[in-house]
């Protein structure tokens, strides 16, 4: 009995040490986050009025009004900082949207439409989803994607987080595990059910009273893997944890949620993604952010996210059968070569090595392959304890404590 208690105590101690270390490296980011939240409704209204005034003044001078947006698609506009991730530089290139050009006037009109909608929402202190805005004038926007992009552009242009624009987005992510919280409207959410997951809140900023005894957070790339882990009652078989999936490339709410949990709980966050370029990309988005949302990196990235697996080197180490591998497509190869140029990859030799291994293998485990190799997790599950340990002893996962904790608790 004493041995068991001592073991659990050591385990918790190791986790606490890891938390403390991760926290130390995040101090700068927290300060930035605090600064970002100080945008009042009056600020939002003033900034929109400035944009409108600029247009009116242009017209009064007989000039065609234009809107200038920071370019959100160029790596040249992005800087990398290990504590923040990918963030937009101060001297960024801008995209000009003209009002007198047939190819851009639609964008110009859409932007103004969204701006006026936001203005009203902020004035009346009400919220609308991007879907609501789209259905307000489907002919103008053409597709939901246009609204998404326009809202992000406005957020970037006004330097205001989307939440402050009173624009919400329907979440696509799911969350489950040892977690209870309260929505802004007072609704209590309990994610402890072992069978069904809860949708990530569309108002993450409004979440309060988070209660959890989870020891770690597990980000799962794919919804299928996530469901499989739920079915296998992964949470109840291991130490208490929180599982979250953004169902592929994560939406803003899933990323905000991960960030919120980190800010509140300060527990290790592990990413379980496919051993292919897209898996690495998705894990990087949680950890370091994306180019298009780099202007809001401070509220979206969690640089403490750790790459659990499945590592490309595991494919060889675990002797995954060749017929269970799917060769890379040209898109995969192109993605890999783009990954190798990323600043965060070149700064981390272990990542770089794994990426190069990915290139050498030139294939990823097939989803429906026999022998339980359908997903990284099912792959892990089919392994014996020795191989599982080998998986956790990855060179990227440089935290022996975490490995120790997981190796002991994750005794599938």
């Amino acid at each position: 009995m004493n041995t068991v208690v001592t073991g659990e105590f050591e385990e918790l101690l190791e986790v606490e040490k890891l938390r403390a270390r991760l926290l130390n490296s995040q101090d700068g980011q927290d300060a930035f986050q605090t600064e970002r939240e100080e945008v009042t409704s009056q600020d939002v209204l003033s900034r929109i009025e400035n944009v409108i005034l600029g247009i009116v003044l242009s017209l009064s001078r007989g000039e065609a009004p234009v809107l200038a947006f920071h370019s959100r698609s160029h790596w040249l506009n992005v800087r990398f900082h290990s504590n923040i991730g990918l963030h937009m530089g101060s001297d960024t290139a801008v995209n000009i949207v003209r009002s007198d050009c047939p190819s851009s006037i639609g964008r110009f009109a859409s932007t103004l439409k969204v701006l006026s909608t936001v203005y009203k929402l902020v004035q009346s202190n009400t919220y609308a989803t991007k879907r609501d805005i789209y259905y307000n004038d489907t002919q103008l926007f053409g597709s939901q994607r246009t609204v998404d992009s326009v809202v992000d552009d406005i957020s970037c242009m006004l330097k205001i987080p989307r939440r402050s624009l009173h624009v919400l987005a329907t979440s696509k992510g799911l969350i489950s595990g040892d977690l209870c919280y309260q929505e802004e409207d007072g609704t209590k959410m309990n994610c402890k059910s072992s069978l069904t997951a809860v949708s990530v809140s569309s108002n993450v900023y409004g979440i309060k009273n988070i209660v959890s005894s989870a020891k770690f957070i597990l980000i799962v790339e794919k919804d299928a893997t996530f469901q499989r882990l739920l079915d296998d009652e992964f949470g109840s078989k291991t130490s208490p944890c929180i599982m979250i999936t953004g169902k592929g490339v994560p939406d803003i709410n899933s990323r905000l949620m991960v960030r919120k949990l980190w800010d509140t709980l300060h527990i290790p966050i592990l990413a379980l993604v496919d051993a292919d370029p897209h898996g690495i990309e998705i894990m990087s988005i949680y950890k370091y952010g994306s180019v298009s949302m780099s202007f809001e990196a401070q509220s979206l990235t969690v640089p403490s996210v750790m790459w659990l697996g499945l590592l490309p080197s595991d494919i060889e180490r675990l002797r995954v059968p060749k017929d269970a591998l799917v060769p890379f497509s040209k898109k995969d190869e192109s993605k890999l070569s783009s990954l190798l140029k990323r600043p965060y990859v070149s700064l981390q030799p272990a990542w770089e090595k794994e990426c190069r291994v990915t290139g050498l293998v030139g294939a990823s485990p097939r989803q429906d392959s026999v022998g339980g190799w359908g997903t990284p997790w099912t792959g892990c599950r089919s392994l014996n304890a020795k191989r599982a340990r080998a998986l956790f002893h990855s060179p990227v996962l440089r935290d022996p404590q975490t490995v120790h904790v997981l190796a002991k608790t994750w005794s599938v």
Partner: protein
Amino acid sequence: MLTLIKQVIRLLMVTVHHSQKRQKGSGNVKGGLLVSVSAETAGSPSDHVCGTVAAAGYWCSECTFEDVQREVTQNLDSSISIGSPTDPEQLSEFLDRCGPLRFHISFQVTGRSRVSEGDWLKTEQLLHRLSLVHAQVEIYFSLKLNEAISQKIYRCRAHWRFALLGGCIGTESALYLLPGPPAGPSGQCTQLHPVPGAATPLLLPHSLVEMGLCGTISLLPAAALSPCVAQNPNWPAQLVDIRIFLYGPSNLPLLCDAEERPLSFLRDFAHLLSWKEFGLSGVRCSENSTEAGCLLSEMVYTVEGSEQSAAVGQTLLLFLFLQHSDPFCSQLSDFVVSEELLVQNLDRILQHNQERVKVALHSLLQCTLSGSLKRQKAQAKMQAAIPVILSSLSSVVSSSSSLAFRTTCLNSMKVQDTQELGITLKQALLEVTQNRFMPSRKCNNKCLRRASGDGDVDGSDHKHAPLRLEDSSRSLSGALDHKELGVEASHSQTGGESTTVKKPRVAGVSTHPSAHKQTHTGPWMPAQHDIPGLSQTQPTAAAHTACSDPVPRSLGKDNQQVHCSHHGSPALTQSTLYLTT
């Protein structure tokens, strides 16, 4: 007389055409063609009509015209005799401008002869049509009716030509008597941008082969839109009419007279193509004006539903060039006979090859009108977006509780309330979007920027007005000012080849035929200041405007007799021309 002149021109052009085919690629060599007629009609002491046709310069330097001379003299009517030009100075001036004389014939009709205005109008129209596809040749037409003189010069500047079929299509929209684009705040393009189609071989019906028409026949289409609105992408533009210009194998216009019925193939053309593909509801045959000052085409079609549009009306010029080659023809008479046979039976040939012609025209129209279709779609986008922009702007301003913001908005637009603000914003936005100017390399830009208070003519009247062709035409007609004349004078100094125009000029005006008419101070006179006896203090405008109508002119006294000659320089001396106004 008209028939004779037409006959001479035809023989001349057939000779030049076949000579060019042998030489290959001499289409860009410049030169001139002179047609001069002098008539003393009933009531005058000497009742006669004299005519001169001359060709000079390098465009026909390789031709031998003995056959033409022979053909003409052999078929002369008894009342017509070969003589000398009545106005040697005129011929001399012509040679000075166009180069060495290559061909010349003068003839005289003695006794009472009927000279109707319609005859000369037809000659003028023939020469005009000829000039469109022989832009490398300056064509001079002079008509002296008793003491009244009327002159026309058809010339196109060197850089405004489009080489095609060994000749050049003139690309100056004014050559086609078409209005230029509406005056705007920026430069305008007064040029056509022809799109050549693919030459389509035509099959000869058996009956024609049996009649002796042999060789290969093909149809080369080319099209151009006028006015060019490429530099003003946001101007609403709409195709208003289509004009067909049909040219025979020697690039001679077919010129269906008003009395003649147009080719049935051309009448069916309205139903031949699927117009909806080109964004048009349909076309219908229209009346071809044969009045003076109108360009005669073989067929005119009006685009249905274009009458009520406020958009800039565009004309589609559709050139159809027939090409014929018969290796067994070598004599001028053979060429003329086969060409006549071809032209007489053209309708049957076109009907026989209806599908081929349809495919060729469809493909060409797709290329030519694709830009118009894109423009229509762009216009639709603009029209859909502008109300959204305006309502969004008004919405924010109206619902704002910031006094400073609202006041600044109202003050900047110089309005009292938000309702006025909405109206003013709409006007301002429409103006800035419509007047967008995009310089294009292929377009010639005529800057119209008005220096403040200089009183120059520009499009400022249209600044807030919808773009209407009628308005612009009105503006053009009133835009012939002194600057314009000055430019033409400098143009003349460089022999019509000047590419740099330093003086400000009015776009869409300078190249208008009426401007041509007005700018000549004498018969083919090089420059105003070179005219002895013409006082610098004379009202130039009076001198210029006089030429648009026949004007009396006193001729030099030292005229020399010029006899029929060809090949080589004429023994002409420079004569001085005096202009009285």
